[in-house]
């Protein structure tokens, strides 16, 4: 967890820990970290991590929403948005 930037947002911290398996380069994760450009993750690997996140928060994130998400910050925002509904 030392690589994770200080952030008050609990969701952000939780997401970062769930994303660790695809952070193979050990990057310092920020809200701006891009899944494909920075983490060089395969799109399928991102979808698999999203299933972990869904079960953690007991929400479903449709693929149509996931395909619009590029960065960790956008994913955090999407989770907040779905939890509000």
């Amino acid at each position: 967890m030392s690589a994770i930037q200080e952030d008050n947002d609990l969701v952000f911290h939780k997401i970062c820990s769930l994303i660790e398996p695809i952070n193979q380069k050990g990057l310092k994760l920020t809200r701006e970290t891009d899944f494909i450009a920075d983490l060089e993750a395969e799109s399928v690997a991102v979808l698999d991590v999203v299933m972990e996140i869904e079960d953690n928060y007991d929400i479903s994130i449709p693929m149509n929403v996931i395909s619009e998400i590029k960065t960790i910050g956008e994913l955090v925002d999407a989770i907040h948005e779905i939890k509000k509904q």
Partner: protein
Amino acid sequence: MNLFDKFEDKAVVYNQLSDIGKNPFTVVMEEIISPTRAKIKGRETVLAGTHNYLGLTFQEEAIKAAQTALAEQGTGTTGSRFANGTFSGHRHLEEQLADYLGLGHCVVFSTGYQANLGAISALAHPGSDVILIDADCHACIYDGCQLSGAETIRFRHNSPESLDKRMARLDPELKGRLVCIEGMYSMFGDVAPIKEFAEVTHKHGGMLYVDEAHSFGVYGSTGRGCSEADDMMEHIDFYSGTFSKSLASIGGFVASRHKELEYLRFSSRPYMFTASPSPANIASATAALTAIRSKHEIRTKLWENVARLHGSIKQLGFTLAADPAPVISVLFPNREIAFAAWSFLLEQGVYVNLAIPPGTPNATSLLRLSVSAAHNGDDLDKIVAAYNGMAAQFVDAK
């Protein structure tokens, strides 16, 4: 920045492989010798990487039927199923399939890909419906979801529990709930628990769509697929299949016990706006279906070959992806070793499929062997000998 820039990274790898003459994705079969033999780079090779599960590509009756159809009905239909390309042969095959499957209705498409693309995209609409798909579903199911525009949610592979959770979370406003799974999955050769999926799907007011592309003609006591093996033929809502595997032709179909399946004929774009299957394709598929219905010994032979190959390969210490099935996949630690092993087997005169991420489950690298009922003793010996050699050469892979 231009249109071609985005291809650069992949093109470098693709061209390098082509330059050294070892691109797994550009293999040409120069001469087809039999259902299980072809010349590749001038050399007779055992085909263990085509989906010719029942080995019917050279079946005498099928060839004769195709030749007759070609002579009597011409080379192509020059029309679409919807407008100007439905011949009596298309209708006859639909009736034969519906009768065999014991499902009242069947629609024939031009390929298996288009069957899934066409049915899924027409069945689900944005706003009112939701599609739930197994994470390991084939690309054509993903593409069908995308073309439909409906909200799509993935659940964990072969996990009815994961589906249950996701269906329980659905907005009650979403009325149409389509759940898509496959019978046997083509990458690992593993099989879906269809009974459990049907229970969960129906409990939440959904309809179950089962793609039996790789299991039609192969599983079940009369060859009707994994749905028959699980005694679920009367409970599933949609059944899709292809002509390009056990039926040894080209085309696809969707069958259903619901009469509303017929609505696809005026609402499925991949049905309406493409050329219908050629008379020869329809005739050979119809003949192959007759063989599947009457010659149970073909299926028996396939499963004997599966037992022998799965047993022999397992004994060599490789990690196999699933229990004995017509697809036998050996898992490798990374794509480089898998590629080297694929090249090794081809040099030994055995052609299998190399599968590497992103097209594989859990980003695995694997060699996929497709078993055929037409593999004779000599074919099986050659395959086992090549895998023996691979076991000695690639000790780290085990």
